[in-house]
């Protein structure tokens, strides 16, 4: 029994032990050979992916372990594998930045690996307790990562804001969880779901708890009205950390929403649906309109994150398997695109300052046509222009919204996507039609360039052949 438990949690155990190994090994690696730490951390991700893939191949759909606090299913396995891949890409992108800005430290790798462990715990959580602990593990590592550059005033300010608001949100979430525990008498998500199916689930206590849970989740997603932290943290954190925060934890947020609202409180769907409708609509409006006014590309991408998370919620609020699959597809597509967009900003930065102004992209097409073209494809995809990956992601969630009967919301989403296209296309305009001001040569290591090319071409290729990824997402919920 116990052995089976350990087998199911093998990827988690592996990541934990090897993260400790990386932590210790880094102490003995001299600063000029930090590449070794990078290599070790990447190897951890590769082997973890192999272990998870092996579990995915094994027969048996859903398996519980550790007294039902841990669950292994197809949804979790897919999300975990995508988390490893994204983190490996983040490592490669971040290395170039960290080297230039004198932040190339082992702590980046160990804290990222522990954050990954938190994400994995959240993905595989089947109890409120483990869900919360995973969330805290991710959050604590993220706070430290944001503050990693201690000489930066902006970074410290962002970390402080992130920490205080994050703790507040954790408190709200925990309060909601405790109310739900009080109403249902169980921490186990499956037991909560079973307990709710019997009664009508109209108890005031339960609804009260649900409101707190939704507010806590909304903060972690960074959607309106709990979005205040997103632009400041994205702006203040070092670019490599913004890249991290903007990608991998989004997968965890999706897992948090699905585990809590679908697995646990799925029977209260009628209660949380309206809340999500309001949150999604406000996020779409505010995210897209505020992004237009930004001159800083990090802030612009932060507001665009808010609107994209609003899009993701459109799939969730439908409450159907089709909707959840669409939300999952949207999240994975968004993570893929935003990693590339941040990577281009990293590419343009030199050791003196981050190229985080939209003006810094001026005339990129003349300075380096290939990477300007990559950025063009990424921006087209984020805007949701047909043929690219982002279009199919938007199409899926809007289709799910319409089939759930929210035609008005779907129209709002389409209108806001058009509004959003303005600021993405402005980037393209700046790159292609403005004269370059900065003429220093753009240089990056080979692995960085290769990955960015894969990332840029990928949004086109995955858009043309999106059915494979869509099938994968649908299979997670069937």
């Amino acid at each position: 029994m116990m052995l089976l438990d350990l087998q199911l949690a093998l990827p988690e155990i592996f990541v934990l032990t090897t993260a400790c190994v990386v932590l210790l090994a880094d102490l003995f690696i001299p600063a000029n050979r930090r590449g070794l730490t990078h290599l070790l951390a990447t190897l951890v991700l590769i082997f973890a992916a192999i272990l998870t893939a092996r579990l995915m191949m094994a027969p048996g759909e859903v398996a519980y372990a550790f007294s039902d606090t841990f669950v292994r299913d197809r949804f979790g396995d897919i999300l975990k594998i995508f988390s490893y891949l994204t983190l490996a890409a983040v490592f490669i992108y971040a290395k170039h930045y960290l080297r230039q800005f004198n932040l190339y430290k082992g702590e980046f790798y160990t804290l990222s690996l522990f954050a990954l462990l938190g994400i994995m715990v959240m993905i595989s959580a089947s109890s409120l307790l483990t869900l919360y602990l995973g969330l805290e593990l991710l959050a604590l590592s993220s706070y430290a990562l944001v503050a990693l550059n201690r000489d930066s005033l902006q970074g410290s300010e962002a970390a402080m804001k992130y920490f205080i608001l994050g703790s507040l949100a954790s408190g709200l979430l925990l309060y909601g969880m405790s109310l739900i525990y009080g109403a249902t008498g169980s921490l186990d998500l499956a037991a909560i779901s079973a307990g709710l199916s019997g009664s009508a689930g109209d108890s005031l206590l339960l609804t009260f708890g649900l409101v707190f849970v939704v507010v806590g989740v909304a903060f972690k997603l960074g959607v309106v009205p709990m979005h205040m932290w997103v632009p400041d943290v994205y702006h203040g954190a070092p670019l490599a950390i913004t890249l991290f925060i903007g990608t991998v934890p989004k997968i965890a947020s999706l897992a948090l929403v699905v585990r809590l609202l679908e697995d646990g409180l799925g029977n209260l769907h009628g209660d949380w649906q309206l809340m999500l409708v309001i949150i999604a609509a406000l996020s779409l409006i505010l995210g897209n309109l505020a992004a237009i006014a930004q001159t800083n590309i990090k802030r612009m991408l932060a507001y665009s994150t808010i609107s994209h998370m609003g899009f993701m919620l459109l799939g969730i609020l439908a409450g159907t398997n089709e909707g959840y699959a669409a939300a999952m597809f949207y999240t994975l597509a968004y993570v893929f695109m935003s990693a590339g967009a941040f990577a281009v900003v990293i590419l343009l930065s030199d050791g003196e300052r981050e190229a985080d102004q939209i003006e810094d992209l001026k005339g990129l097409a003349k300075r380096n046509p290939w990477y300007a073209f990559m950025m063009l494809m990424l921006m087209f995809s984020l805007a949701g222009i047909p043929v690219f990956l982002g279009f199919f992601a938007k199409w899926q969630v809007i289709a799910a919204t319409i089939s759930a009967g929210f035609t008005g919301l779907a129209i709002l989403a389409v209108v806001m996507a058009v509004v959003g296209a303005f600021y993405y296309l402005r980037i393209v305009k700046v790159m292609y039609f403005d004269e370059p001001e900065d003429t220093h040569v753009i240089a990056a290591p080979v692995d960085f360039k290769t990955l960015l090319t894969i990332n840029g071409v990928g949004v086109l290729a995955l858009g043309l052949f999106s059915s494979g990824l869509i099938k994968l997402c649908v299979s997670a919920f069937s």
Partner: protein
Amino acid sequence: MPIIEIVFYLFAAVLVASALSVVTVGNPVYAVLFLVLSFFSAACIWLLLEAEFLAIILVLVYVGAVMVLFLFVVMMLDVGGGQKKAQFARYLPVGLLVALAMAGQLFLVIWTQGFEAQFMPEPYPEGFSHTRALGELLYTDYLYAFEIAAVLLLVAIIAAIALTHRRRPETRYQDPSEQIKVRKAERVRLVSMPSEKEGASGNGNGQEGS
């Protein structure tokens, strides 16, 4: 039974008296020491309730670690008790108001509910161990959550060190191997000076050591 009651009232009296002293005593160091005493008395009352694990944890963690840290900080910061007296008088009306409101609320609860214990748990059989029961639950049903909580603490340590530890160039530290290998020529300088004729004050010259 009376023995237990006597012990309870003894510890309760010490607890209340020391808690009062924490806020009334002028010297902050005394206040912290009284807080230690009140924690300790509370731990003893928990022992009477058969919650021995909580009692031990309270003494170990709060008395042993947190309060010592508190004392350390109070002594380091050298918080004066001088202006506290004046502030105490200034805030007294509001403080009294809050205290009265709290007393009123307590009174309401006691008035409506009564102060009789509604449900007295059965005393545990002799030899029952809370620590054991807690441990059995923690290492079986909640093993996974327990391990994750441990990792959380590890991350907190790593984060704290990563954010505060920095190797400053101006920091001076000793290198024992360098100290041992030192030679006389590196540290001692012999200066020859003409000897003074008058007076007996000129006998300390010639050597400068470090």
